[in-house]
């Protein structure tokens, strides 16, 4: 939901480590992150803070699993990848390495998928390395 971004990031995990100098907190072991309707399940999550607030969340898993309820009456958006970069202040979720995202019956598969978690917009393919292979499967609209 677009309101997700105002919600705090809640985390459950087996253990936790705070590196005070680098301002990095690491959660590891059965990590579940929730922020409003968004949920990420991973093996390890690193949260980078800037001036005391959450700036970037990096999730690593085999794979990392993601789901979010977009505004309106669209279906759940789900995603999987070996690595997620969640740029919190930019409302952007970058799925990397064997990434797949399902939205309204459509499937996007690529090595890099950018997803605007505020407006539920998907951008697949790797802008840096030119034409990263992207596989899109669009479901025909139901009559």
């Amino acid at each position, binding site marked *: 939901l677009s309101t997700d*971004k*105002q*919600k*705090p*990031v*809640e*985390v*459950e*995990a*087996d*253990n*936790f*480590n*705070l*590196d*005070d*100098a*680098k*301002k990095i*907190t690491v*959660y590891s072991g059965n990590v579940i992150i929730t*922020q409003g309707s968004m949920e990420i399940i991973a093996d390890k999550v690193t*949260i980078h*803070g800037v*001036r*005391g*607030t*959450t700036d970037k969340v990096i999730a690593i898993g085999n794979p990392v699993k993601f789901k979010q309820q977009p505004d309106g009456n669209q279906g759940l958006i789900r995603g999987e990848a070996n690595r997620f970069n969640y740029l*919190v*202040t930019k409302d952007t979720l970058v799925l990397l390495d064997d990434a797949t995202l399902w939205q309204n019956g459509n499937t996007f598969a690529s090595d890099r998928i950018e997803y605007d978690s505020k407006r539920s917009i998907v951008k697949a393919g790797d802008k840096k390395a030119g034409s990263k292979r992207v596989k899109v499967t669009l479901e025909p609209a139901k009559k």
Partner: protein
Amino acid sequence: MKPLKILALALFAAGTWWIAFTQEPEAPVQTAKPGHKIDYFLKHFEALSMTLSGEPKQRIKAEYMQHFVDDDSTELTRPIMTMYSSDKPDLHINSETGYLSSDGELVLLNGAVNIRREALKNIAPLEIDTHNLRIQLPNDFAETDEFVKIKSGTNAIEGMGLRAHFREPINIKILEQVRGRHEIN
């Protein structure tokens, strides 16, 4: 005839009492341990230890302190420890009671323990609440197996079991059942 009956009963009662008395188990003899004796005590005790370069390193204050002659240990009431570092805000640790080992290397902070550090420049404030903290002073290391709650800036993390290096670089671990809450803005 009646007095004879009474006499017999009395003899019988005396006999059973005697048997019970002789069979009574030996009362365990308390081997007398050398007295855990106080040789001196101080009120409003305060001790400051310095670094080799003459900078304050850590301070221990307590409302009441008593020293024991047999094991050279010290017990403190409402101790407050302050850890100084040149470029970071001071770390204040207080608890209900405390114990200082004879070599001065082990500190046991018993009961509720609060660790607090103010904010400084871009260093977030830090506050930790837990119980029964064991501190190894030479290694600047603290640990407990109890419930712990950490507040750092707008973030709050809690769980079971703490392992912390509280001098540069500060590193804090929570061992189990972790719940975290990170504010966004």
